[in-house]
């Protein structure tokens, strides 16, 4: 397919080109009819947000801005996704949310507490209410699956961990929910990728946290395992009433589970890198006319895979990075 000449040498504008899209292309860009999933109920207007992020900035020592003025709220029961292309700062944002990295500017409040200003003991109490599922699972290799799931109890609920039988029963209950009871005595190296993710999910949800933060939970998994993890994440968090934040670039997962979310500008988007391109519900994402949002959500469609912010130049139907 040859590109129209009007797509060549685009000006540096994030909102260029969309007016040039012809009617046929417009029809192809209607939001996909989404299958209904076991999704949480819509936000209550009176609910207070669990997580409040305001004007988050993160710059690297070499001066590169990774996050640029990111703001969003997460309410109880939300399934909130953070999507974006490579280098958009998703992992950095996640590290800041869980307190592993500090932002250059801006604040992160979880349950009304600024997590980067809390003393150690208070932060430990706060983290009791936050479960984290890492991209690699991050199971401790020296512990069995059961011991990994027991670790949060040993840290935060000594009264349970002192009673060996109670602890074992509680751990088995958590493993039953992710269908891993038969593998409780195994070490992480003996598990498949999908099993590791399920074990990590059980550990993240061990203390029935109010907030679950999940970093690319389906990366490296086959489609069936991906769906399984998505289902488990939603079902288990819905049972515990937790809000879920999922950092992902898996479009199928996004379509399947997202209720609200933001999209961050990727490294290829130049000056828009690390900024919030769109914030809203899943329907608003698919209805968006923002070219970067549409090109991300419909990568198979060449007509909307367009340059923005001067990052690309199209020549004879081929995209070249400037």
């Amino acid at each position, binding site marked *: 397919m040859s590109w129209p000449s009007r797509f060549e040498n685009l000006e540096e504008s994030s909102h260029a080109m969309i007016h040039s899209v012809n009617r046929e292309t417009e029809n192809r860009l209607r939001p996909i009819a989404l299958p209904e999933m076991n999704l949480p109920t819509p936000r209550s207007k009176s609910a207070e947000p669990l997580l409040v992020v305001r004007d988050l900035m993160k710059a690297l020592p070499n001066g590169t801005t990774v996050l640029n003025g990111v703001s969003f709220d997460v309410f109880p029961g939300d399934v909130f996704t953070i999507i974006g292309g490579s280098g958009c700062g998703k992992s950095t944002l996640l*590290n800041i949310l869980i307190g*592993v990295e500090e932002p250059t500017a801006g604040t992160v409040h979880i349950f009304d507490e600024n997590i980067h200003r809390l003393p150690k003991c208070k932060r430990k109490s706060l*983290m009791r209410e*936050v479960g984290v599922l890492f991209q690699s699972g*991050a199971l401790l290799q020296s512990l069995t699956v059961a011991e990994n799931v027991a670790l949060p109890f*040993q840290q935060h609920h000594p009264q349970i961990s002192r009673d060996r039988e109670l602890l074992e029963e509680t751990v088995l209950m958590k493993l039953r929910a992710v269908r891993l009871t038969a593998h409780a005595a195994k070490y992480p190296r003996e598990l498949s990728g999908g099993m590791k993710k399920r074990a990590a999910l059980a550990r993240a949800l061990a203390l029935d946290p109010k907030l679950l933060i999940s970093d690319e939970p389906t990366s490296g998994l086959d489609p069936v395992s991906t769906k399984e993890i998505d289902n488990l994440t939603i079902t288990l968090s819905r049972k515990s009433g937790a809000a879920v934040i999922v950092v992902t670039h898996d479009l199928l997962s996004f379509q399947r589970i997202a209720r609200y979310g933001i999209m961050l500008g990727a490294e290829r988007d130049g000056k828009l890198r690390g900024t919030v391109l769109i914030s809203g519900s899943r329907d608003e994402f698919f209805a968006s006319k923002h070219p970067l949002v549409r090109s991300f959500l419909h990568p198979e469609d060449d007509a909307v895979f367009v340059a923005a912010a001067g990052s690309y130049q199209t020549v004879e139907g081929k995209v070249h990075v400037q």
Partner: protein
Amino acid sequence: MKPGHEYSYAGLSVSLCRGALERPWLPRTMWKAFFNRSLGIGVRAVPTVFLMAFCVGFVLALVLETQLAQLSMEQSVPRLIWIILNQQLAPMLTAVVFIGRSVSGSAAELANMKIAEEIKALDAMGVDLSRYLLLPMLCAFLVMLPVIEIYTVGIGLLGAYGVWSCIMGMDADQFVLGALDGAELQDALIGVGKSALFAVVAAMIAFHKGLNATGGSDAVGRVATAAVVSALAAVTLVNALVTGLQLLNK
């Protein structure tokens, strides 16, 4: 330890001291980790230490006997072996074996955990790294190095006795009496004290290198090598300083 920041020696020292004083002291999980570490660091090192200590004692006795026989001072050999083993060779030999086996292993383990996001996961769960991970390692080093050092002295003397009985034809009583003639408890305490000091120095280097690892799987090898080289240099330097101070005070 402040998450996300480089783990400095000062930061590690402060958090380890704070972790050691925090209650409850020695919870069950720490005891279990301490015993497992001690098994790996101490008990499993016994065959290697036996072989090395025996050979070192053997060679030391041989060299001393050969040289001192020319001055008709062979009778001083057991006494000299006692002093040299206790104050210098046994602590250094023990430290070298531990650095090669356990410092490299601990640094590599911590580096692997850092790269695989296990450290981040522990941080995110609110687990105190110093109490859960580092203190059991440090306590195992602190207990096992002096114990193995005493064992090294014993095996070294055994190797030396082998030379003594084969060449000089002396029996065990003469060798022991000769070694302990004028011996002081201070000689043994110096060796034990040095071993404990080397344990702290080597452990801190392993923690620092391991927790600051960055990169991929190749970083594990680099970190292990760097930890061994740094620990060997540090222990040699500390030994020289302590020996200098000890002799200056006499």
